[in-house]
């Protein structure tokens, strides 16, 4: 039996989750929500996380009904993400790891999303579309690496949608993307806008007044291209934008045409959360990885394919 606690705070969500052998025992989370028309800045976000992190940690332990002695490993987000919030969370993770005498594990945020997606959906070896406010990547596993097949050449799709929401002052509560989706449901007119796919990659900047159809079509196209290259019959969507039902619908149509299966998780797990860091930490820990304190520095740039995936063949 292996119990891992995971700390996540690379953007505006701070979450701490506990996983025991594939079971999510607790996964509390808080979101820093800014007024309409404003994005979230690193120092304010770090301040928000600082104010609540110890409370959330206590909640995670209480809701799981565990004491620190029951934990086997402390996992935290090493990167990528915003510097100040990453440091805030890493400090607490390092300190409790030492206080409780437990090994530490620095986890790649994107891999956290992937491993949580695989756990919840039980997809076997899917092509992964990772779409969030900070990242847009199409990923396929091959020989101990999560290979990045295609990605945005400028900004993430979620970032694009968030900035669009900011311009027209849509509320950020619960998230700008959610509110765009609700408004888009009532829409009926399609406006033709620049569609920018370059081979395996996409570009979202330069056009901040487009709607979902165009953006999601671009993502479906590059996912399909990656599936064709890998001969894959499964698609897994992870990341906050993955909650969007229209994206899931469009991806579903493409999958049906190819006879492939589509997997996605609900908002508890596609939005940043602590348990996904715990899950990736669980996999890494069980395959023998540990992070020494001197190497536990955080980093704003951490590519998904930098990590050696020792837990898959």
């Amino acid at each position, binding site marked *: 039996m292996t119990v891992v606690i995971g700390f996540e705070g690379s953007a505006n969500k701070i979450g701490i989750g506990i996983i025991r052998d594939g079971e999510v025992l607790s996964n509390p989370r808080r979101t820093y929500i800014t007024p309409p028309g404003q994005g979230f800045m690193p120092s304010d976000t770090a301040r928000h996380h*600082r104010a609540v*992190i*110890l409370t959330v*940690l*206590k909640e995670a332990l209480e809701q799981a009904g565990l004491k*620190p*002695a029951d934990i086997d490993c402390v996992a935290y987000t090493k990167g990528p993400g915003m*510097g100040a919030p990453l*440091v*805030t969370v*890493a*400090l*607490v993770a*390092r*300190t*409790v790891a*030492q*206080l*409780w*005498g437990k090994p530490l594990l620095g986890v790649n945020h994107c891999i956290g999303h992937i491993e949580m997606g695989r756990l919840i959906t039980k997809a076997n070896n899917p092509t992964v579309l990772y779409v969030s406010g900070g990242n847009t990547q199409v990923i396929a596993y091959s020989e101990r690496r999560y290979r990045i097949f295609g990605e945005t050449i400028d900004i993430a799709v979620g970032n694009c949608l968030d900035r669009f929401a900011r311009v027209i002052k849509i509320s950020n509560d619960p998230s700008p993307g959610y509110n765009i989706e609700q408004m888009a449901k009532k829409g009926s007119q399609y406006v033709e806008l620049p569609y920018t796919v370059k081979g395996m990659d996409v570009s979202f900047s330069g056009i901040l007044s487009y709607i979902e159809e165009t953006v999601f079509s671009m993502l479906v196209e590059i996912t399909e291209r990656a599936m064709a290259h890998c001969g894959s019959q499964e698609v897994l969507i992870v990341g906050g934008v993955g909650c969007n039902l229209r994206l899931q619908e469009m991806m579903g149509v493409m999958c049906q045409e190819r006879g492939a299966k589509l997997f996605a998780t609900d908002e508890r797990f596609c939005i940043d959360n602590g348990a996904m860091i715990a899950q990736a930490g669980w996999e890494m820990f069980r395959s023998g990885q540990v992070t020494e*304190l*001197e*190497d*536990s*520095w*955080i980093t704003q740039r951490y590519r998904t394919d930098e990590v050696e995936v020792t837990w898959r063949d």
Partner: protein
Amino acid sequence: MFLEVESLNEGSSSAASLPHFRQTRRRRRRRRRIFFYGPIINSRMSTDGETDHKTGKLEFSLDVPFPSSSEASIALRSLSPDREPRRGGISKRLMVTGNTLSVRWSADEARILRVSVNSFLDHLSLVLETMETFGPPVDSGI
């Protein structure tokens, strides 16, 4: 269980940029509360700032007493891994001697020094509060 951090010692060297530092802190009116684990011993965090006239660099030092050397080491190992966000113009050294965590800064400009010290004090405060909430450390020879 809290202690207010003194601003720069009176009587420290009067480099032109240091009064600016002190002024700015007063203007901001931020009181920094540092939580110490364990009973308050009659000891205070001590700070010192001056200009090294040979190199022209501004230096700042901070000494933080802890109830034990293992706790000082825990704080050191939590606070040392992350690099300064701004690579140039500032360097910082952390060390533990006995029960005390010592930090030594060397910077080209007062503004850069101020940002780094403020940031460090925020981080130290978080580490201390974590230790107070979830300590004491288990005896496992870490």
